[in-house]
């Protein structure tokens, strides 16, 4: 038993030394990858005066790269801010738009002129997953919580008590406090152990063929079974609200159906989930007069352009996508829209 303050301090410092040392070691094994998050997008919108605002799930990070290419090609004449909301779903997009983005978009200066005076376009990135009902589970991902302020958290706690939903705000705050700690970040990734073991065994991180096939099977089943959940009324209603946001501000709106990794798409998914979702979105876009760009299977993105998670495009793929998109379906971004705003369905 530690009986003196000196002993207690020695114990604490030695413990801390081990933890920090381990963290430094593991940060070399599994470096923390700071991805663009919703608060980064909100901060950029606050700081900048973009021509195009993009909202989507984590896939919006790809459009962030497109925005960089856009700025390069137009020498800064056309700029874009992408706001990625991890885990997606339209209802959280609508919450984010209403509570965090709209106040910035509608901000006026002292003389009553809009601060975001150049904003003319709005792009919503989505896919079939976004229109399925909100997830129910232990963690109850609440990724708008990453854009919450303390006031939002307190209000939600006052209404609901502390729940797995609003707890995400605190999870995010804790991660931000330990922003560079691989141990803290790994608690949601669980890669340190595997990468360390592989490092010690001098083996690559590749999964066994059986594990790899199981992963493919899981993804294929996920997409194929998506037919049963797409078009959830709450999600579609939220999408309607998002369109109204753009209409009220005379923003030229585009809905992008994001590319999927070809390997995750079975023939059944290509004949059920994807076309049914595409029709749903075509009807929606046509009814509301917004442009629809369906790149689910028509982009040049191949299996090699996606990360190991089978979901996100890798950095090289992002660059490829950005270049291709600005030469094709997104070439309209290179020039400002004619006024008044004209929208077409595609």
């Amino acid at each position, binding site marked *: 038993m*530690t009986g003196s303050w000196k002993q207690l301090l*020695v114990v604490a410092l030695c413990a801390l030394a081990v*933890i920090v040392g381990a963290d430094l070691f593991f940060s070399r094994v599994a470096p923390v990858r700071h991805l663009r998050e919703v608060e980064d997008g909100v901060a950029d919108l606050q700081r900048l005066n973009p021509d195009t605002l993009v909202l989507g799930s984590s896939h919006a990070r790809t459009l962030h790269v497109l925005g960089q290419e856009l700025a390069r090609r137009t020498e800064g004449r056309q700029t874009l801010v992408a706001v990625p909301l991890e885990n997606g779903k339209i209802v959280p997009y609508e919450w984010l738009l209403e509570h965090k983005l709209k106040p910035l978009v509608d901000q006026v200066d002292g003389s009553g002129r809009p601060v975001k005076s150049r904003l003319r376009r709005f792009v919503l990135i989505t896919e079939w997953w976004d229109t399925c009902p909100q997830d129910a589970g232990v963690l109850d991902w609440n990724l708008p919580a990453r854009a919450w302020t303390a006031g939002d958290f307190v209000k939600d706690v006052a209404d609901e008590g502390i729940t797995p939903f609003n*707890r995400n705000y605190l999870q995010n705050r804790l991660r931000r406090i330990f922003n560079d700690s691989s141990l803290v970040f790994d608690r949601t990734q669980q890669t340190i152990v595997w990468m360390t073991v592989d490092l010690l065994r001098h083996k690559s991180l590749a999964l066994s063929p059986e594990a790899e096939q199981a992963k493919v099977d899981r993804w294929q089943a996920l997409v194929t079974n998506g037919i049963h959940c797409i078009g959830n009324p709450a999600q579609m209603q939220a999408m309607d609200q998002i369109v109204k946001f753009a209409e009220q501000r005379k923003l030229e709106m585009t809905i992008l159906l994001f590319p999927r990794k070809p390997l995750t798409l079975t023939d059944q998914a290509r004949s059920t989930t994807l076309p049914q979702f595409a029709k749903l979105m075509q009807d929606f876009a046509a009814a509301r007069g917004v442009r629809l760009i369906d790149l689910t299977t028509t982009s040049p993105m191949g299996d090699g352009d996606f990360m190991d998670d089978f979901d996100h495009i890798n950095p090289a793929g992002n660059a490829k996508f950005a270049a291709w998109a600005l030469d094709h379906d997104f070439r309209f971004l290179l020039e400002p829209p004619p006024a008044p705003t004209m929208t077409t369905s595609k």
Partner: protein
Amino acid sequence: MSFVDVEFAFFFPAVLLLYWLLPRTRVAQNSFLLLASWVFYAGWNWKLLPLLLFGGVLDYLIGNYLGARPVSDPAQRRRRSTALAISLTWNLGALAFFKYVGFFAHSFNRLFEAAGLGATLPELQIILPLGISFYTLQRIGYIVDVYYERIAPSRSPLDFLLFTGFFPQLTAGPIARGAELLPQLAQPRRLQPGVLASAAATFLLGYMLKAWVADSIGSKIVDPVFGASADYSAGLHWLALFGYAMQVFADFAGYSLLAIGTARFFGIELPINFDSPFLARSLPEFWRRWHITLNRWLFDYIYNPLVSGSGWFRGRFYLTLVLVFLASGLWHGAALTFISWGLMHGIGMAVHRGWDEYLRRLCRKDRKYVTLRKSAGYAVAAWALTQLYFMLSLIPFHAFTLTEAVNFARDLFVAHGDRRLELGAIPKVNEILCVGFVILLHVLDMPAVRGTRERLLRVPAPIRGMAYGAVIVYLFLFVPVGASTFIYRQF
């Protein structure tokens, strides 16, 4: 909010820091802890905070009412009994309403349907106030102790409200006695390095048991098999049952240690709640080691008064044992499965009592039975039977329905599913370490090994520090974000 939730990582350091920055007076410290406890409870549901407060105020007033009327005064007997009855009615009534109304309405409705009567009682969906099963017993224990003049009533409403709503023990115990907690609350606490170190070690041990052992075993072994038992073999059923025993122990013992460690950080000692129960060689010994504070409450406030009182239960040890454990089962939950669990243990305790009396008679007649009783073989057999019985009793404890319990029990012997547990090499090692850790804790508590434990606790400070650091790193790697709810919190 629970000890392993992320909000506790914000709440606790702030509360602890502010607490020790306060003037070192009883009023300042207790006021702050009471406010913190209300915030803690309100974080779950502030609308039920008045229920907690009202009961505390009522029992404070009744306690002082009783204290002002000594038991030696015959003229006060009726008033004292009435006051006691009011407290018990409120406490037990609130518990019955929130916890059991739905169950009894549902049960009566099923009976009405079976009898073809067609009448129905409303089956209300009532929120169970967090911790009501625990703080109710704590308050009843206090009032009964004051009634029998075992303790003096608390004169300080501040101290008493904190006694009935101290956040480390509020949601799931340990259930403290007035004599244990109130004297501590009546004094200011001082920050001492030894106590701080012990608090941190206890908290870490509790966290390891709850967030690592219980959650790992639960998610990887117990839940898969219990969730789809027809898919698995009989062997895996036994493994899952063993795993569940580990999980329940780690979950609740872990919670108790977290509560004890948290309280110790504030200079307050809570009673221990677990004492290596898997070393027990009889059911009575088991229940002296498992959920100690609940079982001593049941025996001190129900069993002993019944069997030693002047009523009908006087001397009826066997029946009273069964009734006490039925009450324990009902306390755990308003369901036939929990009642079955309680009945199993009541019968087991009664059988053990009968066996023990029989064996004592044999020992008095012939010394060879004394030798037998003290032999290692007898000890091992008694230990194995005790632990096996406890494990089997967990079948109805885990099940949602009696049918599910019966099916699982049957599958222990006849299941022939061929599904395997999906455990990779590293998770498998982790599971083995979890079980090994529980075994190690118990082994270190054995009398023959206690010297080793004392030597381990005296290793030099730097080595101790590095060991703690390594443990914390391991927990970072193997404890997932968002640990599951404490099993006992639902009671």
